[in-house]
């Protein structure tokens, strides 16, 4: 974990993506994630077949803006109905239904409720795809044979070569020291 490597110019072939390290249990992976964050790495990620509890804390991932996106969608749905209903029934085609006023909000609440839920759902799902940059059908990690097990039982850490702290030898040694069972170079 020597900082001397940090100032070395990163000499790499243009197609080098980075290092892929395989881990065999969750605890080692979490400890490695904490250590890598403390070592100052920026462009790296953990890959697991299931969500690991506490991983966002270990890696220092900030909370996302997804709840706000959902709120915006839900509000959009609610106000769409609260605006559309009077527009249709009070202005474009004013008509008296069962002696009710043209513009009566209580009768519009059930639809505003439903459309609010729809708006929140559509926004949060699209927000997920946009923030996660999915769909992304090609990724350099998919070239690694062992990475196919990431959706089965494989747990990995990948550090990108463009990370300022990256050095082919030192980073590899660090990963091995942190308990990686195997470290592999990934070329794009």
């Amino acid at each position, binding site marked *: 974990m020597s900082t001397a490597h940090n100032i070395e110019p990163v000499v790499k072939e243009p197609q080098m993506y980075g290092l892929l390290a395989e881990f065999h249990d969750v605890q080692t992976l979490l400890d490695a994630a904490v250590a890598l964050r403390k070592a100052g790495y920026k462009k790296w990620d953990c890959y697991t077949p299931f969500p690991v509890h506490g991983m966002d804390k270990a890696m220092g991932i900030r909370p996302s803006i997804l709840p706000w996106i959902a709120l915006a969608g839900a509000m959009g749905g609610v106000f769409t109905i609260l605006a559309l209903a009077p527009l249709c029934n009070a202005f474009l085609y004013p008509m008296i239904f069962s002696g009710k006023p043209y513009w009566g909000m209580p009768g519009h609440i059930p639809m505003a409720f439903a459309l609010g839920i729809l708006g929140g759902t559509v926004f949060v799902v699209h927000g997920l795809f946009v923030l996660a940059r999915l769909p992304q059908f090609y990724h350099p990690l998919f070239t690694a044979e062992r990475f196919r097990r990431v959706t089965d*039982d494989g747990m990995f850490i990948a550090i990108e070569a463009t990370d300022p702290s990256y050095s082919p030898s030192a980073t590899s040694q660090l990963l091995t020291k942190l308990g990686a069972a195997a470290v592999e170079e990934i070329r794009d």
Partner: protein
Amino acid sequence: MASVTTTQLPGMTGDFDNTLDDGVSKAPLVLGEATFREVTRKICRVAEAPRAPLAWYVAFAISTALVGVLGVMIAYAVFTGVGVWGNNSPVFWGFPIINFVFWVGLAHAGTFISAILLLFRQKWRTGINRFAEATTVFAVVCAGLFPGIHVGRPWFAYWMAPVPNVMGAWPNFYSPLLWDAIAVFTYTNVSLLFWYVGMIPDLATFRDRSKTRLRHTIYGILAMGWRGSAKHWQLYERTILILAGLATALVLGVSSTVSTDFAVSQLPGWHETIFPPYFTVGAIFSGFALVLALAIPARELFGLKDLITKRHLDNLAKITLVMGSIVTYIYLMEFFIAYYSGNGYEQFAYLTRIMGPYWRMGWLILFCNCLVPQIFWFKFARTTWWLALPAALLCLVGMWSERFVIIVTVLNRDFLPSAWHNYAPTWVDWLTFAGSIGLFFTLFLLFCRFLPMIAMSEVKSILPQAEGHVHDDSPAAAAGH
């Protein structure tokens, strides 16, 4: 995976009784060899087997034949006119609306399991949530079919939407029928998105295990390039949590909105404030009965007894019992309110249910929905398939009869006795209903064969070896949390 061998539980397979906790540790929810790899293998082998079990082919043949019948019946009704049904004056709402309300109700268990049980952190839901969500999506498909054909001219169904048109007319936003259309539209979309987003990591598992190029391409497109990144998992878990919150509101809202079709009208027997919770509880009750009735054969047929354990059946039966008991309370309360209101019309409506022309169905409801679920007080009944399965099916019969009685016994006794007219479904009605059951099972069987039937990533996350502790007290960690 040498480090996880300690968590294997030798001798505990699918027939092991894990319904009791010993007071020291929780009983395991995954039996057999509980490693990540084994969970993947057990669930994937259903979809990866070259041939499905023989029973699957038999069931699929029957279901698709019924879908054919459904198509013929719809074509017959559309080309001839809705007079081929038993609907009459004053019973304008016959089978189409009965079946619509029934199917919407069946959808509710999936949403309840994936939304409310997630918020309550019920770990056992992971074994059954995926296929319960699938029943939601397919039941909503069947539900949406009926109002679509009930309008008689389905090609004008878009008139329900506020579309600018040459007549300058707009939908009536005060009408519960429009609320209903929007609620079901919302329900369809939300349950589909919830189901799909939850399935993405498991579709990626299918992609990575695929042996042929075709499978790799199809599952690859559906999985959207999911690679299990921690940053993605964080967004994904947050999305699922928000969707669960929204769907919780929806599971309580949709049947409530459906009930306003009845409760907002001015008819004795329908015009009641108890209707929204009444319909919602009845919906959840029938939905859990359906999930129980599907889980019992599915775990046998596809060899999933280690993942859908007796504890899952036990819990499903318990929720069915609770909901059945609430339904019973509501029935009693309805009769009491009718008596206590002192309103002759209201009292007449309720006496008609148990003493009128449909008294047999009235008593069948009380038997199926009130008495039958009471056997689930006994653990033997909850965990024995030949008791639990017929009981669950009887609950479904009871709930369908309830929808029938609510709609028909109120409408057939109009305000003027001269307008009274009984209702009898025709063979077209019956075959259309049977066809919708075939449609449901066709979709469900295809799902079992080609999609991940159990949420693999979620089951893995509740295994003991998925737990870890973050040993870090630095401020950066606190900020990131």
